[in-house]
Structures are given as C-alpha cells and as structure tokens.
C-alpha cells in the first residue's frame, strides 16, 4: 500500500501553475522530488498538508483523505521545512517539551537515543546550531513520535558535503527500518546516493516519476565533435558545450544502432540535458 498518493493536484498562483501533479510514495521508499528552483516543489509539499490550498486534486496518506483525517495523519508523519528555524532563541529542551505534549505516541527513550546519536545538546538554542544540526534536531523530533513518513523540503541545502553524506546515510538507515521519505532537492547528486525513486517536476508539471535506475538508463551520454553533433542532430537531446566538444544524450537504441561510443548517465546529467533541450 502506498503511504502517500497524490492525484491530479492543481494550484494556480498568478502566472505559476501546478498542473495535474500525481505520484506515489511506497512504504520504506526514499523518493527524491527534484526540479529547478521555482519548479513547484515547495508548493507541492505544502499542498500535501493543506498549508497551500489546492484548486483540485486528491491527497491520501496511508489510504486516508488528508482533510478528513488531518490529526490522525499528522500524528503519523513528520514535516521538516528547512531545519529547526522556529524559536531560535529558545532552548531545545523547551521546544521539545512543548512538541512532545502534542503526540500521544511520543517515545522519550527514542528521543534520548536520537539526541545522543546526533550529539545534540538540549541546553542549546536553534540559533546556536549549524544547519546540519538543526536538521538533525528536526529529524529527532519527527522520529521520536514514530513518524512513518518524513516529508522534507530541501533538507540538504546549505549543508557541507560531509554533513550531506551523513544525512543521506541516516535516510538509508531509516528506510531500512520501514520509514518512507519524500524529500525535495535541487542537488541531484543526493539522489544518486539514496533515492529509490525520483519524481521530476518542471514548471509545475510532473515530467516523470519512476525508479531511479530506470530513469538513468533511459539515455546514454555521448561526447562528440561539432561536426559529428551536426550530423547526428536529430538523435541528440540537450546539446551542451564542454571543453572536449559537445555532449548530449541519446537513447541506448540509437547509440547501439549508429555505433556511437557512449557512457552511462547519472541523474544530474539527464536533468541538465533535459533542461537544455526544454522538451522533457
């Protein structure tokens, strides 16, 4: 059963439109939600929790309609938007004391374990924490009430590479324990490391939502001279200029048929060339 199912979500914001956004997140799955800045990632995530009111569409968590089961669903999920930026001058102890009072399922032992694991000092304030530590604190709060689904908006933005890597490992461990994670990012290399599936949004529309490996195997990367690129123009997707000449994507069948040497792609490569092509 999917823990989150979104169907035909639409929202108009003046010139920006979220159009027929649909995708699903399965239990224990890490879903990367990618797109450029302004593509509609945050709006979509907020619309899931009705913080932004969709014009139409359906959002179901654990098979239940969000609007009809808001409290029950919120008890089973954790939403983290940009780390613990709230009440920056209050001690973590005070924020946690307030937070735990809202959750009947709060597990104090688990909370203590996570504080120790993340090396968080309750005597500190969010203002005294680095971006990575703030995020860990938010995760500790979410996981201590037994969240089965974590929705994280740009969790890796602003983190140094080591912290990012550490966080992605935490995601992988959580997924093994059955926690589902939906996280938005524009740093596609994060997804290569941990995402089981990716959903790609472009200008308010979902371009694809599929298994990460199948996404990457859709295309092959080719490196060509300008003359070769001109000749192969109809087969090339999203040509880009590099020091060595021209790079572009081609379908595996085309590279095979035409005998063009090619390399496998990563998500970053596919997205960059798609964006260049503008035809994703």
């Amino acid at each position: 059963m999917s823990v989150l199912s979104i169907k035909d979500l639409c929202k108009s914001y003046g010139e920006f439109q979220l159009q027929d956004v649909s995708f699903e997140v399965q239990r224990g799955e890490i879903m990367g939600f990618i797109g450029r800045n302004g593509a509609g990632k945050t709006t979509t995530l907020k619309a899931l929790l009705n913080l932004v009111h969709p014009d139409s569409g359906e959002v179901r968590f654990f098979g239940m309609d969000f609007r009809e089961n808001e409290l029950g669903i919120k008890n089973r999920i954790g939403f983290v938007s940009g780390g613990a930026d709230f009440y920056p001058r209050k001690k973590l102890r005070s924020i946690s004391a307030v937070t735990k009072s809202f959750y009947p399922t709060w597990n104090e032992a688990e909370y203590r374990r996570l504080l120790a694991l993340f090396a968080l000092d309750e005597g500190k304030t969010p203002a005294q924490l680095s971006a990575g530590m703030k995020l860990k604190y938010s995760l500790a709060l979410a996981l201590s009430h037994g969240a089965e689904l974590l929705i994280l908006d740009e969790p890796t933005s602003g983190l140094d590479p080591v912290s990012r890597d550490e966080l992605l490992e935490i995601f992988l461990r959580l997924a093994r324990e059955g926690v589902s994670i939906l996280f938005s990012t524009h740093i596609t290399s994060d997804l290569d490391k941990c995402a089981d599936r990716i959903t790609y949004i472009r200008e308010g529309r979902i371009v694809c939502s599929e298994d990460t490996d199948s996404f990457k195997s859709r295309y092959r990367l080719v490196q060509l001279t300008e003359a070769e690129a001109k000749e192969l123009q109809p087969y090339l997707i999203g040509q880009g200029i590099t020091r060595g000449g021209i790079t572009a994507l081609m379908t595996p069948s085309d590279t095979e048929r035409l005998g063009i040497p090619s390399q496998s792609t990563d998500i970053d490569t596919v997205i960059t060339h798609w964006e260049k092509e503008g035809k994703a």
Partner: protein
Amino acid sequence: MKNLLIKDFRLAMHPTVFLFWLLSAMLLIPNYPYYVVLFYSSLSLFFVCLGGRENRDIEFSLMLPVRKRDAVRARICFAVISQAVQLIVAVPFAALRQAMSVGGNQVGMDANIAFFGFALLLFGIFNLQFFTSYYRAPEKVGRTFAASSVILFAVIAVFETLTHTLPFFRLRLDTPDPAFLPEKLAVLAIGLAAYVLLTFIACRISEKRFESLDI
C-alpha cells in the same frame, strides 16, 4: 487546543505581557486617562504576534498535529486570558485609587465599576479588529496593529469625550463607587456581553480567514 495554549504561554508569550499586566498599577495615578492601560495590554498582544512572525510560530504550530482553526482559537484564548488578568490585576488598584482622598480623576473616567465595563467593550472592539485582520495576513502584523491602535484611540477619545460632555456619563458613571451602582453594574454587564460577543465573532471570522490562507 489546550496544548497550543500551553505552547503560547511557554514559547510565544512575550515578556511585555507580564510587564504590562503590572501597568494596571497606573490606575493609582491621581489624574490620568486610565484607558491608556488597556492600550498597553493590546500592545503586548501585538508583540506576541510580531514575535510569532519572527520565530515562525505559525509554521511551527501547523507542523504539529493540530488544525488551523485550533491555532486561531488558542491564540484568541491566550488574548482573553491576558486581558482578563489585566483587568483582575487592575481591580485592587482601582479600589485603592478610590480610597485615596485626592478627589476624582480630572483627566478622564474614574477607575470605577463602569470603567471596567467600558474596558471590556474596548477589548472586544480590539479583538474584532486586530485578530480578523491579523489572520488575513499574519506577515503584515505591524500594519494590522497600526490600524487597531487608531481605532482603539478613537474609541478611547469618544469614551473620554462623553465622560466630559454627556451628563449621564459625567454625573452618574464618572463618580466614585458605590454611587449610582445599578447604572454602573448595567454598563459592566453590557461591556461583558459585548466583549464575549465581539470576541466570539472575531474568533469565527479569524478561523475562516486563516483557514483559506496559503502559508
């Protein structure tokens, strides 16, 4: 809602809420426009909401397992408690002021039973204007409070003008207690009823506006 109310007291409450409760002691000033004390009370609520904006209180609250309308109810309930404390703290000072043999308040309304009726009416008007406007655009809380202050002082000006000009106010309501007790108790009852009604309407409208707001 109870947990959200506790959250407001533990995290959102600005120190001025407590400090301005103590300003009820200003009723001891022999000659002073006592309604100004109520402005301080309203100012402290503005600070709570302003602090909420800076501390991302709304985002924090809505990540918790609560409904949007619960957040509105808790905040208005917090305001009701704060205003009630303000007036309760003021009662002994009003009694002391009456016991002082310095004559009536030459500037405006005496700190008597009718004063508390008008105070409740004033708080009700503030709640209606401030919260309905605040929950339409929480990020513009400064503008909201500026408009509320203009209305608050306009109503205070009307009350004080009536105290000086209208015989019923001047000769019956603006007198030491227990003179004209029935009239003053009637003003207190009307003030209380108006406060309850206006605050209830403020809550309903605010809930509706906040519910339709995109965060």
